[in-house]
């Protein structure tokens, strides 16, 4: 992917807000919709980053997360890569909105990514990659 943003950051949840701010700024420059700037992009990217840091990298100090973002007039494509073994995206179908799951503290991350992005994919690159695509409205 030819990326306008390509950074490698320490695997630390305290890095998330700064990365999100960089991506949102690029989307704003491409005149993305206000709701996409304030909700879809920040929440979905935060979920992808926290998954990568806490699950993919096991919250281990010393590991890194790579973030690539390609922003055009048409769409945003984000790739978040961790050093983990990956997971089966298709197998993660649990619905956090059912009555039996509603009071669970966890289990909403992937649901939010799927709800707020047009496409969520996972594949192997150098590491485990989650790709999020959002079409500009």
């Amino acid at each position, binding site marked *: 992917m030819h990326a306008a943003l390509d950074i490698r950051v320490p695997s630390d949840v305290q890095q998330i*807000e700064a990365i999100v701010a960089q991506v949102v700024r690029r989307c704003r420059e491409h005149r993305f919709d206000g709701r996409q700037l*304030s*909700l879809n992009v920040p*929440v979905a990217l935060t979920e992808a980053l926290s998954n990568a840091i806490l699950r993919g990298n096991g919250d281990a100090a010393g590991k890194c997360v790579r973030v690539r973002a390609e922003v055009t007039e048409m769409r945003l494509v984000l790739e978040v890569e961790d050093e983990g073994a990956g997971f089966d995206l298709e197998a993660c179908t649990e619905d956090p909105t059912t009555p039996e799951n509603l009071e669970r503290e966890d289990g*909403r991350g992937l649901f939010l990514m799927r709800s707020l992005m047009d496409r969520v994919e996972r594949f192997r690159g150098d590491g485990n990659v989650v790709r999020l695509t959002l079409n500009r409205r």
Partner: protein
Amino acid sequence: MSLQVSKNGDVVVIEVDGQLIVGNRQELKQRVLDEAEGGARKILIDFARAGYIDSSGLGVLVSLAKRMRELGGDLRLANLNDDLQTLFELTKLDSLFQIADTRERALESF
């Protein structure tokens, strides 16, 4: 994120300023638990100055609401902006919480 805590009668009002996400959710959790430990049973979280909330932040709210109910108390929410309202509707958490348009209405509801 920062938290402003005040009291209105027997209601502890906690105003969230900024994002409530994975890196700071424990601050809110600990603050509410500290207030509960000190005897508070009515907690209002005011999101008038909040940014976005991620799944970890939502999870903390769910967990705190459950804890307050176990203690015979209640945790309610106020001032969700359109983005936050959408998040609560998407996750159906709007059915789990009592949510008021304004702080005043929330305080009256206790």
